[in-house]
């Protein structure tokens, strides 16, 4: 076993919650002889494994589940270049360099301000220049690049005044230094870069963090199927490597990884993620089945007809692509501010220069004053105003169980005034729950539990989950055997007990199971998809926030009606993905800002089209990718919390803008009069930035 032969791969393990989990995983996984090393990343809920190359995927996932964790492989290779995370690190390096430079220049500047003169002052200015110029060249790259790109396309963004300001200030300071002048603004230029970089870095950290959370949730990436080879042996194939005419073995409780035709076995499929339909559909050989559906009942064999991008969801993907264009036209508040701000700043500086020239101050003094105006108006506090507020808000929301993908999502979320809500999986839990368990006596319950906990069938798991609430101990049973498609059988006190498909068929299409002793039915349990526990409160709270809600469902009217009645909502039913998309576009044309809350593949285009969108953590991967925010857990209240928090964030951002403008109202006249020395600029800049960040921190406790 040589170290070079090891394969490395990351796994998303959403259930890492405590130090115990870290110890359990890191020490437990390496007990498997095939796994050489395991390292947990708690922040991103990932485990990095090094293992022998001949270990296959189910064995690795088995090693996790043996320890009680659900794991999903991430990506396809060991070192997938993570461009976004690299940008973040790049920015952090720039922040560190500019921070270091700022502190050292400040050290020299303080001595100049406190009265150093003559040769000492010149020396200090030269030293400052030696530190500042390389720093500006290194840390300012991203600003210069972006400003250049904007100028080439004939536009002006926030980076243009920043770049011009910094370059101009450095040039003038260098001239001042060379001629033994009194003021050099190196500290101001570097400080400006430092604060602005802090703002950008916060923004990118926020995106990284949410992305980490989302990848941990994405199940599809690296999922796959057990494929039956020509030689009759089965092996695990990643979803990306599936090809037409392969035969997949789909066990009960497994999701289909590709479209296909059933070639063996019969089962029931849960289509809720694909169509919103809540009732399961029976499938038999020669019927078409689709990727993303959940096999409920018995193992089936499926011949793949289309995989990956060719699946039936490609149509949905196309719709999503079109729908998302509307969203990309949204302009972030900081950029909107910059559109007004950048020309104003340039005009002011130009006016200052012209004014002093006319007044006869000479080009040297006039330029110095113009530079002071530029640097004092440069949006130091503005650069921090938005990201600081948004990252604090996103952090608070994350603790409340909402992942926000980026800052613009928060801005759009604050503006919504109409909510379209999907039913299956969004208002409801989207998984079968046993109903009426309380009417059975304790003996029956313990018998059911004994049988159900031995199986991983979705209905058995629902039973086990339901019975746990009643403080039941499982009965002592022996010889447990599970027959796929029929049920679980065991010996109990000398008689045969069975939990499985009901014998009488008057239950129609509804999901049900039956407990029988010696062939006699003892108890029939029905299953239904229940409402989320706080659906009613959440809808009411949303209404109090001034957001009207309406159900858009792909399900039949009979299935939607009871839910709509219970929540007091109007509903549109039987809607295709196209219909949902059109409903949103109609409202958008009327000027409404629509919040789409949905989970299924069929909601994908609607989620992409909504002004803002939220998906539950249990949603399809398409849904989670398309949505702006993701809420975790069974409660829907986080949706309302997210809207409230977004509005509060927006209020703080507006306050921050006002603060920054107020600061400018004081500082600009001073700069105009030529009273802004480097000392005044330094105090004004750091002071306003601190106030803005302090104001943003108030959001930390704002969530309830």
């Amino acid at each position, binding site marked *: 076993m040589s170290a070079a032969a090891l394969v490395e791969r990351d796994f998303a393990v959403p259930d890492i919650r405590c*130090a115990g989990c870290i*110890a359990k995983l890191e*020490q437990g996984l390496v007990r498997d002889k095939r796994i050489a090393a395991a390292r947990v*990343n*708690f922040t991103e809920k990932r485990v990095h494994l090094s293992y022998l190359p001949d270990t296959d995927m189910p064995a690795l996932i088995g090693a996790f589940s043996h320890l009680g964790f659900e794991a999903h492989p991430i990506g396809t290779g060991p070192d997938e270049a993570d461009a976004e995370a690299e940008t973040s690190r790049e920015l952090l390096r720039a922040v560190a360099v500019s921070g270091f430079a700022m502190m*050292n220049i400040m050290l020299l500047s303080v001595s100049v301000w406190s009265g150093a003169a003559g*040769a*000492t002052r010149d020396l200090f200015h030269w030293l400052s220049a030696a530190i500042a110029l390389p720093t500006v060249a290194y840390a300012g790259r991203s600003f210069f690049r972006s400003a250049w790109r904007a100028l080439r396309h004939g536009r002006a963004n926030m980076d243009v005044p920043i770049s011009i300001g910094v370059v101009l200030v450095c040039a003038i300071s260098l001239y001042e230094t060379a001629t033994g002048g009194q003021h050099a603004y190196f500290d101001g230029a570097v400080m400006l870069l430092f604060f602005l970089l802090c703002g950008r870095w916060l923004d990118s950290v926020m995106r990284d963090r949410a992305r980490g959370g989302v990848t941990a949730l994405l199940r599809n990436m690296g999922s796959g199927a057990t494929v039956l080879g020509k030689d009759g042996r089965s092996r695990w194939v990643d979803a990306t490597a599936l090809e037409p005419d392969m035969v997949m073995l789909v066990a009960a409780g497994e999701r289909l990884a590709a479209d296909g035709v059933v070639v063996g076995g019969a089962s029931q499929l849960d289509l809720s993620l694909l169509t919103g339909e809540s009732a399961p559909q029976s499938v038999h050989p020669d019927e078409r089945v689709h990727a993303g559906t959940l096999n409920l009942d018995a193992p089936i064999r499926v011949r793949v007809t289309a995989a990956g991008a060719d699946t039936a969801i490609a149509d949905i993907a196309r719709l999503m692509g079109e729908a998302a264009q509307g969203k990309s036209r949204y302009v972030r508040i900081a950029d909107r501010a910059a559109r007004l701000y950048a020309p104003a700043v340039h005009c002011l500086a130009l006016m200052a220069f012209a004014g002093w020239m006319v007044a006869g101050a000479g080009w040297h003094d006039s330029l110095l004053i113009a530079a002071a105006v530029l640097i004092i108006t440069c949006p130091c506090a503005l650069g921090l105003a938005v990201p600081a507020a948004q990252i604090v808000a996103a952090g608070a929301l994350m603790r409340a169980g909402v992942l926000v993908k980026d800052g613009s999502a928060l801005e759009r979320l604050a503006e919504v005034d109409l909510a379209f809500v999907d039913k299956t999986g969004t208002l409801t839990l989207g998984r079968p729950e046993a109903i009426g368990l309380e009417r059975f006596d304790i003996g029956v319950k313990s018998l059911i539990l004994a049988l159900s906990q031995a199986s991983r069938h979705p209905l058995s798991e629902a039973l086990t989950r339901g019975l746990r609430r009643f403080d039941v101990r499982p009965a002592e049973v022996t010889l447990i055997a599970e027959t796929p498609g029929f049920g679980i059988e065991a010996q109990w006190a000398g008689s045969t007990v069975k939990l499985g498909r009901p014998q009488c068929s008057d239950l129609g299409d509804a999901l049900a199971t039956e407990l029988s002793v010696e062939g006699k039915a003892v108890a029939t349990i029905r299953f239904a998809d229940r409402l989320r526990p706080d659906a009613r409160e959440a809808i009411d709270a949303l209404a109090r926030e001034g957001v009207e809600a309406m159900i858009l469902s792909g399900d039949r009217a009979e299935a939607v009606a009871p839910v709509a009645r219970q929540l007091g909502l109007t509903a549109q039913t039987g809607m295709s993905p196209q219909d949902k998309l059109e409903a949103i576009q109609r409202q958008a044309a009327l000027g409404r800002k629509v919040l789409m809350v949905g989970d299924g593949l069929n909601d994908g285009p609607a989620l992409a089209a909504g002004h803002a969108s939220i998906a539950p953590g249990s949603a399809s991967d398409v849904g989670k990718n398309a949505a702006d925010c993701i809420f975790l857990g069974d409660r829907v209240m986080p949706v309302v919390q997210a809207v409230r928090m977004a509005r509060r964030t927006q209020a703080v951002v507006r306050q921050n803008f006002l603060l920054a403008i107020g600061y400018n109202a004081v500082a600009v006249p001073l700069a105009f009069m030529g009273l802004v020395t480097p000392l005044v600029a330094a105090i004004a800049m750091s002071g306003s930035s601190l106030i803005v960040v302090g104001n943003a921190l108030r959001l930390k406790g704002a969530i309830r």
Partner: protein
Amino acid sequence: MNGLVFLIPIALGLGLLGLAAFFWSLRKGQFDDLDGAALRIFVEEEEESV
């Protein structure tokens, strides 16, 4: 003035040292898992059989 000849390089050198240490720890992945680092103190080391 003579003191400055020593003091300024020392001040800059210390600053650079800090910067270098930060870059080093960044490259070694010390900031990759901040929440996990806080929890690892609770992890009991297993006696490793080497």
